[in-house]
């Protein structure tokens, strides 16, 4: 099963609801293209909802880092929402838990963007 993603806009934030696998190959490529496409449209506030991500590997973690860097380099923000235990554990093991801004409540995550944007 590969990765699926649906996009919706809440205020100024693009929420990307992702499901399936973010692994080397299709899943990573899809994520890269999604982020590139949004940045190309001038959307620089992205919230990745990982609630239904069933599997992520080292390449998938790298793709999240790449997305984070790409958005940050354009003056935007990328945040993560609803990590499963497996993804949470992987980000802790790899010390990336402190790099990403991680939320388990969508409204609060959106609010964090608004506050940051207005600061």
């Amino acid at each position: 099963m590969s990765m699926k993603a649906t996009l919706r806009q809440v205020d100024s934030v693009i929420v990307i609801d992702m499901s399936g696998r973010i692994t080397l190959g299709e899943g990573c490529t899809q994520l890269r293209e999604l982020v590139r496409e949004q940045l190309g449209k001038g959307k620089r506030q992205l919230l990745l909802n990982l609630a239904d991500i069933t599997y992520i590997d080292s390449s998938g973690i790298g793709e999240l880092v790449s997305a984070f860097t790409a958005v940050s380099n354009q003056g935007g923000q990328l945040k993560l929402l609803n990590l499963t235990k497996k993804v949470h554990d992987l980000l802790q093991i790899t010390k990336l838990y402190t790099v990403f801004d991680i939320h388990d409540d969508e409204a609060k995550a959106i609010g964090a963007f608004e506050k940051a944007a207005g600061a």
Partner: protein
Amino acid sequence: MSPPPNMTAEASVIEVELASDLKNVEVAEQIARRVSGIVGFSEDDQHKIDMAVHESVINAIWHGNKNDPSKHVWLRFQMYSDRLEIRIRDQGNGYDPSKLPDPLADENLLNVSGRGIFLIRTFMDEFRVEGVAGGGTDVVLVKRLNCNNPAQSRRNEP
């Protein structure tokens, strides 16, 4: 290149030969998960073993066999009462894992790649890279059953 010489049929051994195709990574994962379940590992450990095999097979296909579809990857799962040993063989020249950069170092934290071997080491009790006489590389992974886990130790009772 021939299969590893010790790949004989034993009740405790499962051997698989895969073409160097990333589509086969999921096949390897599924076998790893099934075998680790049979040995008696917890769901959590099954996932760790599954991920270690996933990362190892990707390395074998991508780095070892250079994504050459004419090459193969061999997996050998040896099931013991107290552990699972997994050997993953490719047709590449191998590498020295001690020379890989530390993905947890501050300067490497935002690197896009370089976490696969680290995850394998974290998830397994043993990780070795061995050259194969005549060509090829074996990656050996060992995971021991945790005797402090009642669910696991019960399965080891005679």
